[in-house]
């Protein structure tokens, strides 16, 4: 049996060399994290399960092409994200399933009284109000930590489009999450009524 202390890279190498247990150990280590990625992206557990299954089997087959200079987690993460994005593209012609918990545009407040877990749930619910076109770039950039350039490559769109969709999505999230005082404001409506708060001096934030 493969020693539990083996590094991820050693497990990949062992798997490529024919160790029948190495990949199972790799899956055991990373399954839950990748499940979270798939579930966030696809929102449907059955779809997420199928996507993760496809992704891990793709990784199983492609292990010999893994480059040692990469992190195994980064490599696996990208495979999972790609499997999820394939499914997002396939379903884009289908209508979005509304969430039962929250009506459209309904602010989700107050936040201060919430636990971290509740806050995360609120953010997840707010994300679900976005279209896939806005939600997926935001997931990739703001949640999963991909750069704008990486996200553009993953999605096959221009970097400017990634930035623009992220901008629109964040603006809507700010409204849905109750960060803006005028939650009824739609995109391209003046936001001149915002909640007052002290803010640090701005830097010129140019995306990731």
């Amino acid at each position: 049996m493969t020693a539990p202390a083996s590094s991820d890279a050693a497990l990949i190498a062992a798997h490529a060399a024919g160790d029948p247990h190495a990949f199972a150990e790799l899956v055991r280590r990373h399954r839950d994290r990748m499940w979270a990625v798939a579930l966030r992206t696809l929102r449907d557990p059955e779809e997420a399960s199928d996507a993760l299954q496809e992704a891990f089997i793709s990784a199983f087959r492609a292990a010999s092409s893994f480059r040692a200079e990469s992190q195994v987690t980064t490599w696996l993460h990208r495979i999972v994200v790609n499997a999820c994005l394939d499914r997002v593209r396939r379903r884009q012609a289908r209508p979005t399933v509304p969430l039962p918990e929250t009506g459209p545009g309904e602010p989700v407040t107050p936040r201060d009284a919430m636990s971290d877990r509740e806050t995360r749930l609120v953010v997840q619910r707010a994300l679900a109000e976005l279209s896939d076109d806005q939600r997926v770039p935001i997931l990739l950039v703001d949640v999963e930590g991909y750069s704008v350039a990486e996200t553009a490559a993953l999605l096959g769109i221009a970097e400017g489009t990634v930035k623009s969709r992220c901008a629109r999505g964040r603006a809507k999230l700010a409204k849905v999450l109750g960060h803006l005082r005028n939650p009824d404001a739609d995109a391209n409506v003046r936001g001149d009524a915002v909640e007052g708060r002290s803010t640090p001096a701005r830097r010129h934030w140019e995306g990731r």
Partner: protein
Amino acid sequence: MTDDARSPLGPPWSVDVLADLHAGVLDPEQSARLWPAVNADPEARAVLAALDSVKVGLGRLGAAPVEPMPAHFAARLDAALAAEAARTRPVSRPEAPAPVTDLAQARRRRNRGLGWAAGVLTAAAAAVAVTVTLFSPADETGNPVAAGPQGQNSSDAAKPPLQVNRTDLSAAIGGVSAERDYGPLKNQSGLEQCLQANKVDPAKTEVLGVRQVNLEGKPGIMVLLSTGEAGRLRVLIVEPTCDADNPAKLVDTPLPSR
């Protein structure tokens, strides 16, 4: 750039313009012109702070502890990977190929009613059945003794028996897949006789792995067999007396159980 002529590039601010500025959508010239005005306007800064809060919340989502993958999905994943492992390194192949089943077919069988095609897993044709043959000769005190001499064809005879729990059979899949440890069944022929007694036709069923196990204190053998459905396992446990005339079945269950 996402603003248009109706969106002011100055106070009173459009949320979208500020979001564009915040996200680096605007061209450098516009940005350079806007930032001083934005930094000088508390209301504009408040909008940017709100957008920052959104980003912070999203970042926390990515860094948060994750919930475990639900057990039935995890078992399905284990089964699919075991089938894939066995497909590439089978212990024995049936004369007739197992029917190919992709995820879309599996989904339809699950009656979920989703209408889109799923999966590239046509190669994950074989789900797996697990046969565990108990071979627990007891010593005079009734305690099970260690496994006896290994069969001549047991390629993994040196491995210790795999610990198997009835309530978590899926955990043993990875340890059995692609193994060839026949134990008291001695060889493929002995295994096939036991399988036939359990109404498993070796000519139509791919053997994906064989290994001696310890089932909750009882030594035994575990065998992975194809069943023709992706991500689907079956667990069959028999007593050590299993042979062509004695199925000696103890447990026979699909995995995952659905």
